[in-house]
């Protein structure tokens, strides 16, 4: 489990307009590139000061590549990060609030307590 890394992916993609488009149109390529080049980047440091140990599990990689917000929720990704990024990618294909409501409906089988989001 690497909830922190899932959150780091969602966070770094969501704040970069070019990455939002890239992840929307090429999820597999974006996730592979990101894990290779970005996962171990320390966000407030020069590029040479990398971490050495961060990697996705197969399940996490699959959820990201599948744009599967329900699976991400189940894995404990921060729901605010997932929602914000997915609205940015997919709201445009739907009418007002349609995407947000469908997003919630897809999770209607989930009961309390929700998965722990502590990292």
């Amino acid at each position, binding site marked *: 489990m690497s909830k*922190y890394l899932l*959150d*780091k992916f969602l*966070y770094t993609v*969501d*704040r970069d*307009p070019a990455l939002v488009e890239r992840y929307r149109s090429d999820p597999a390529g974006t996730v592979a590139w990101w894990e290779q080049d970005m996962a171990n980047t*320390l*966000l*407030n440091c020069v590029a040479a000061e990398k971490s050495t140990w961060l990697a996705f599990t197969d399940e996490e990689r699959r959820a990201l590549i599948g744009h599967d*917000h329900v699976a991400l*929720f189940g894995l404990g990704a*921060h*729901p*605010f*990060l*997932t*929602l*914000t990024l997915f*609205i*940015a990618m997919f709201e445009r294909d739907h009418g007002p*609030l349609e995407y*947000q*409501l469908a*997003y*919630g*409906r897809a*999770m*209607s*089988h*989930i009961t*309390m*307590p*929700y998965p*722990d*989001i*502590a*990292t």
Partner: protein
Amino acid sequence: MATVAAVIASTHHPFYYRASTSAGPERPPFADEWVAKIEAFRQTLTRAEPDVLVMVGSDHFHQLWLDNMPQFLVGKAPFFDANWYNEEREFGLPRMRLAGQEDLAGYLLREGLDSGFDLAFSNELRIDHSVTCPIITLRPQADLPIVPVYTNIFAPPLPRPGRFVELGRALRRMVEAWPSDQRVAIIGTGHLSLELGGPRQFGPHGPDPEFDRKAVEWIANGDIDGCLAEVTLDSLHTPGNATHGFMDFMLMMGAAGDGAKADYTDSLDLFHTMEAYFTWYPNGATS
């Protein structure tokens, strides 16, 4: 010593700006009522004639991140740029720049550290909608210097509710002891019941109207004991997965004082979440 001109607690609804500035078919049916309520609420700050605003809010994973996450942070800088690309994108919020009040920020940091709050600080803070929404609703001319105070209601482990109340009490004490003749309004924003990214999001009301009813009562009556008796980090999951933002309201109850009934209370039942607005005048209103 400084005067606490007003204590104000509010929800921060990022859609207000777009709803209130839209026209024609884009304008939601509830916009006129919402604008009327906000304009009445704005008067409660105007009447207090503040010189400086202490703004309590919570960064939504904009500048504060999991590699270095403070629990409570004071912004000490001459200026604060505001709002982020993803807030422009999703909410249509404008870019803003607010002046900072560094003397008060420095005072709160020193006094906070000396009285048991190990406050983090930032000398270059880009603030987000938790602070700019109340500027847009309460002081749209954005002409007063601010001291932002960020709390962590977002990235567990979180401080417990009682700690938020304590920080509110401490802020009130510290502002009242600030050697200055300035009139300070302490403004903080949070949420009632709220679900984000879960199955109960974007419903016709907030996810837990019963919680909202009780919460408004606790706040309006200054019922800190009643609130603390029911609200825990665990209990806040039940009304909605983003309801920990209610702890910023609890902080403001601490700032308003035990048993302090709000001088002004209003609310608006919207889809997704209930809006709520409260103002206290610890020293009476000026006009």
